[in-house]
C-alpha cells in the first residue's frame, strides 16, 4: 500500500476515505468545442490553469472534430481539426460540437 495521499478518519478512529493508492482522478472541466462550419485546423486552445500537469481528455460526446494534446512550454494545449461538412443531418451520426471531459494528472 503506498504511503502517500490523504487518509481521513472518523471520530472512532476508523478510516472513512482512502485516497492514497489510486491513479489521478481529478476532474478539471467539461470542455465543449463548437462546430464552426469551416473545415481545417483551428487555433490551439490552451489550458494554462493546468500548467505543468498532464491532462486526459475523455471523448464522451464526439463531434465534427479530431483533436490532439500537446504541451508547448508545459501548458496543456488541445488542437482541434474540424472535418469536412456534410450536407444532410443523419440522426445517428454525431456531427456537431465536440465535448471532452478533461481529467488532470
Amino acid at each position: 500500500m503506498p504511503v502517500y495521499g490523504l487518509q481521513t478518519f472518523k471520530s472512532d478512529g476508523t478510516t472513512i476515505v482512502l485516497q492514497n493508492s489510486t491513479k489521478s482522478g481529478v476532474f478539471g472541466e467539461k470542455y465543449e468545442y463548437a462546430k464552426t462550419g469551416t473545415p481545417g485546423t483551428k487555433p490551439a486552445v490552451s489550458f494554462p490553469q493546468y500548467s505543468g500537469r498532464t491532462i486526459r481528455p475523455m471523448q464522451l460526446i464526439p463531434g465534427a472534430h479530431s483533436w490532439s494534446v500537446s504541451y508547448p512550454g508545459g501548458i496543456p494545449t488541445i488542437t482541434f481539426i474540424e472535418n469536412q461538412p456534410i450536407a444532410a443531418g443523419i440522426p445517428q451520426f454525431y456531427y456537431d460540437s465536440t465535448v471532452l471531459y478533461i481529467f488532470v494528472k
Partner: protein
Amino acid sequence: MATYGLRIINDDSELLIDSEYFSPAFAQKLEFSPTVYSEEAGSTYFHSGYVKREYRTSTVTAPGNFIVMWTLPDTADDVWYNFETSTTSMGGYLTLWVYANSLGANLTYTLPTGYLFAISSLPTSSETYGLRLFNAAGTKTFDSNNVQLAPYTISDSFTFFEDPTGPQGLPTSISLAMPTNPIFMLPNYTALRIFKRTTSHLEFVYEAMFRRQGTSVQTKEVQVYYSDEDYAWPYTQTIYNSGNRQGLGIIVADANLYAAPGAGTGTGTNPQYQLTSTSTSTSEGTSVTVTLTTQNVANESPFAYTVTGISTADLTAGGLTGTFIIYNNSATATFTFANDYLTEGTEIFKLSLDGMSQFIDITVADTSTSASYSWSTPGAVNEGSTGFTTFNATGANGKTVLFSVVGPSAGLTSISGSSDGALLTGSWVVSGNAATSINVQYSAVADAATEGPEAFRLIATVDGIQVGGTSGDIIVNDTSKAAGYSLAATDNWNESESYPVTVSANNVNGTTLYLTTDNALVTPSSSTVSVTSDTFISNVSFTAGIATANTAVRISLRTGSTSGTEVAFKTITLVNVASSYSFGTTSAFNEGASGSVQFNYSYAANKSVSFSVVAPTSGLSGVSDVTLNTTSFAIGATNSAGNVSVTYSAAADTTTEGAEYFRIAATVDGSTYYSGDITINDTSLAAPTYSFTRSVASVNEGGTFTITFNSNLASSFGYTITGIESADIGGAGLTGNVSNGSILSFTVTEDSATEGPQYFNIALNNGLASTSVTFNDTSLTPSYSFTRSVTSVNEGSSFSVTFNTNQAGNFGYTITGIESADIGGAGLTGLVTNGSVLSYSVTADSVTEGTQYFNIALNNGQASTTVTFNDTSLTPPTYSLTTSVGSVNEGGSFSVTFSTNQAGSFGYTITGIESADISGASLTGTVSNGSVLSYSVTADSSTEGTQYFNISLNNGQASTSVTFNDTSLTPATYSLTRSVSSVNEGGSFSITFSTNQGGSFSYNISGVASADIAGASLTGTISNGSVLNYSVTADSSTEGTEYFTIALNNGQASTSVTFNDTSRSPPSYFLGNTWSGTVNNGVGLNFYLNSTNANGVFVSVYATGAGAGRVSISPSSFTINTDASTQNWIGVTTSFPTTTVPAQDVTINVSTGQSFSFTIAGYTVAGPAPTITSVVMTSGEYYPGETVDAVINFSGPITSDTYVNTRLTAGAYGSFYITSTTGAVGPPGGNGTGGENIQLIIGTNSAYYTGPANPGQLNVLNATLSARTMTGTATGSQRQPYVTTPTFKVYT
C-alpha cells in the same frame, strides 16, 4: 493553476486531490430494466447477424450532472453492448443497446450497470467530521464523506476498429489492468461512410460496441443506419469520422468500492427469416415471385440476395443480385425466365440471402427450340439499280450467315458474272433469338448492250451448312439506251456581255464533254462538262469581248478532247453597240466655294474626254471668275456604263455684282456635249467693327461703373481685364465673352488696405478694342483697444472692460486664466462692437486656489487686457462617516452618521455586501451634514462567511466599514431512500428516512391501496433514521404494473417503487377427442388435454386397469409452455399380446386430474405363420391413372387367416398421390415418407381389407397376394411406388 487551496500529489507527481477542481464522487447506481424496450432484427446493412435490443434504466434521482462508468459483463458469447451516452443529469435515464448474435441459438446475457459520479454538485453529507474542500468560487470540490472516483487504470491508447473501410470487421482488443469487478469510462465514436455506385450511393453510420472477455476489453463497429441515395457520389469511398478513433482515454475503476452490480439478465428469441415462392418448379417463359417473410425487422431494412444456378441471359426480368426492402416484415422479388433457344437442360434457380443461411430452390424446365431460316419472295432489279431479297432467321442469336450467288433455274438466261453486277450483302450476324430478317442487297451494271432479261439466285450458309434452301429466281431487267447531244443559246450577243449556253446529253452518264469557239472574243467559263446522268442538262456561261463590228461566232460541243469529235454546235452574232454621253443635273454654289457636275458615258471603251468652261445660255457670264479643276478624263478598256465628276471653283471677291452663270463643255472624238447653266451666288461683305465704351474715366473704392461693347458682327468675342485683381471688383471674373450690345457692370471693393490708385484695363482677346478706368484709393488704418476699470479685484467684487475701434462690425473675444465659475458663470467668449462695456462679478468661492489672472483678448489678436483676482476663499472643507458599531451579527442593526462643514448634499455608495444583506436597503444615496443612516442585517440561512459593509462618499473624502458576522443556519435536508426500485408481488422492500432536523414528519403513500401492501397504513409519521418495511401482497388479480409513491407532507422528499404484477388466474383443464367402448388391438388413437393459464405446469399421463400393460402413451409427460388456451395432444396405442387374453379395461389418467376409460378387445394367438419372402411390384414405374400392383410372396401356404400390415408409398419427389379405388386420398408421397397404410386379413383362398386405407380388389393365389387396385395420380412425371417390409400376425 491556483496558488492557494489544498493539493495532494502522489510520488508520481500526479494530482490526487486539488481543492480547485472536483474529485468526482459516487452518487448512485443505475440498473437496466430486463424488459426489452424495443427490438430490431438485423439485415444486410443493419447490424447483420445481430438482433438489437434496447433497454432503459429508471430516471436519475440525485441532483447535478454526472459521468457514467459501466460494468461490462464478462462473456464468451457473441454479445456486445452499445451505450447511447456516458453523461447524464438529474431526471435523465440511460439507454443501452445489446447486439446479440441471432444466427445460432438464443443467447442469454447479463445487462451492465451504470455508476454515476457527480462532477458539478457533490453529494451532501450530514457528517460533522472529516474534510471538505472548496474552490475559489465557494463550490465544494471534495468531501471525505463521499466515495471518490479512484481510478484503477487510466489508458490513453484506446483505439477503435483499425480498418475504417471494413463493415463490422474483426474486433479490436485492449488488455487493461483491472480489478475483479471493473467498471469503465468508455470513449464514444461514430463514423459515416459513403460508398459510390453508378448512379447512386450508399450511406452507412457505424457506432462502437463493447464487450469484455476477462481483462480484455473488445470493441467492434456496428452498422446502425443505412440509406440508398438516388444521386451519384464522386468518390469511390468517403469517410466522415465523428471524433478521434485512436489514442483515446479509458478509465477503469473497482466497482466494489461503490456498490456491487446487480444487473438483470437479458434474453430474447432470435428473429426469423423465411423464403417462399409462388412455385418451386416452372418452365422457361414463366415468372415466379419470391417472398421474404421476417419477424421484428424494421421497415426499409435491406436484405441483399444472390441468384446462382442460372445466368443473366436466363432472365428477362429480375437480376442475379438484388435487395429485398422490408415493409411490414415482408418483401418480394419477381423473376421471369427467358424463353431462349438454347438446349441447356433443367436448371436449378437458387436464391440465397447474402451473409445468411436462408435460400430457396426453383426448378426451371428447359423448353428451348432450335433455329430456323428462310428466304422471302425475291425482288427483280434493273440494270444500273440495286435490289434486295429478304432472308429470315429465328432462334439464331449470334450465328454468322454467309450469302453467295448461284445460277438461275433451268430455262432462264444466267448473268455473266461480275460484269453484270455484284452481291452487296456478303454476311450477316444474327442478333437475338426472336424472329428477325435482313434484306440481302445486290446491284446490276447499267451497260449499253441490249441483251434481254437475265437471272440468278441466292443461297445462305451457317457454320458451313446451307440453310433456308435457295432463293427464288431474281430477274435482271435490260434497260440499256443510245447517246444524244445538243447546244442551245440566244442568237445575238451584245459586246462586253455574258450569255448562258445550254448543254444537253442523253445516255452518256459519266463522260466528259468539251466546249470550244472559233473566235477568241467569245470564251466559256469552263471548257469541260462532266455528265452526271443519262438525261443531263447544264447551263455554261460564255463572255463576249469588245467588238469593232458585228461578228458571227461558232460554239462547238466535242467528246474526248477540245479537238475531239464535234457532237453539237451553235452559231451566234456578236453585236458592236454605239457609245453614249451626257451631263448630270447642275447646282448653284457661292463665291469662294467649289462645285461639281457629273459626266456620264457607256460603251465608250478607251475614249478620251476634254472639259472646258463656256458661256451660259442666258444671264451674266461668270466664266472669268471660274477655275476648272477637271480638264480631261480617259475612259478605261471597258464598255461598262460609268461617270466622272467635273469640279470647279469661283473666287471670293468683295464686289457685289449679283449672280453669274457658266456651263461645262465635254469633247469626245470631235463631238461636244454641254452641261446645263451653273449659277455663282454673290456673297461679298463689308469690313468688321469693334468698340468698348466706359461709363466713367475714374471711380472711388466703393463706387460703380459700366463697360459697353459694340460690333457689326453677330459673333461673341472673348475679353480680358488686367491692372487689378478680382478682389478689387467685388470678386468679379477677369475674363469673359461679349457680343454686340453687351454691358459689363462693376463695383469697386472698399477695402481697408492703402494700396494707392489702380488702373482697370479691359481689351478684346483679338486685340481690336480696349478701354480703362482709374480706381482711387480711399482706405483707412484700423485701431482696436480694451480698457479695464481696475487692475485687480477681490473675490466678491466686480469690474468692467470697455472696447473701442474705428472699424465697423462685430469682433470676437476670448477670456482665459480663470473659469466661468470664477466670474459668476459669465461666458468666456462673445462679440463686441465699438463702445461695448463688459461687466463681471468675481465669485466668492470657498476654494483656496491662490491668485488668478483674468485675460481678455480679441480673437484677431489686435487688443487685450488683464485683471488680477485676489484669493479671499474660506477654510478647507471637512467630511466624516462614523459607524455605531465595528461589527454586527446577522439579525443585528447599526447606523452611520455623516458630518461636514460644507453645505449641500453628497452622494455615497455601499460595497462588499448585497442589498439583500441589509434587508433590501439601497446601496447608493445622498447625505448632508448630520445625516444618520440606519441598517438591519438580514438573518439569512446561507453560510456565506464573514462579510464587510463598506460605505464611501462618492467624492472620496470619507469612508468607513462594519463587519457582518455570518451566523446563518445550516439548511434542512430530508431524504427517503428505497431499498429497491421495483418489486414483484409477494416481495418486500423498505423505505429509510434521513434528515438533519429534529422532530417527526408526516408522510403519505399514493399509487397503491393498503391491500397492496398487506394492509399497511398509507399515512404516518417518521423521524430521522426511521425504516418503513412493506410486503407486497401476492394477489390473484391481474391489475397491471402499480407505482408505490411515498412523500413527506412538507414536500421536501419523496421516492417511488414499481410493483410488478405477477398475478395469474388459476389454470384450467379439460380433455378432448377421447373415446370409450371397445378398441381393437394394434390401434393408435389420439386425445388432447386443453390447458389455460398453465404455463410451466408439468403434466404426466399414465394408464391404469387390467389392460394398462397393453397400452403405450406418447408423450407420457411434458411441460406446458404457454398460458394461452392450448390443445396438448397425446397418443395412445394398443398392442397385440403375445398370449391369448380376454377383453381388458383401461383408464387413462392425467396428472392434472382428468381421466377417461375404454376396453381393449380380447385376442387369441395362433401358431406360427409363414414369413414373407419378397414383395414384388409388377412394374417398375407407373403413369398417372395406372393401377399399382404388388405381389407378396410367403415362405409357405397360408393355412389360416394372416394379418398383414403393409405400407404403399411414392418414391422420388414431388406431389405424387396414391388414391384407392374408393376415392380416399392418401397423404402426399415424399421420398417414401408418405403413403398409405394397408391392413389385410389373408386367408387360404380369400382376403379382405380391414383398414385404415382401402386397397380395393384383393386376390389370393397359392401363397401369393395380389392387392389391387391402388391408382397412382400425379401432377408431374411418372413416379415409382414401392411396398415397405410388412409385418403380419395370424388371425383366428
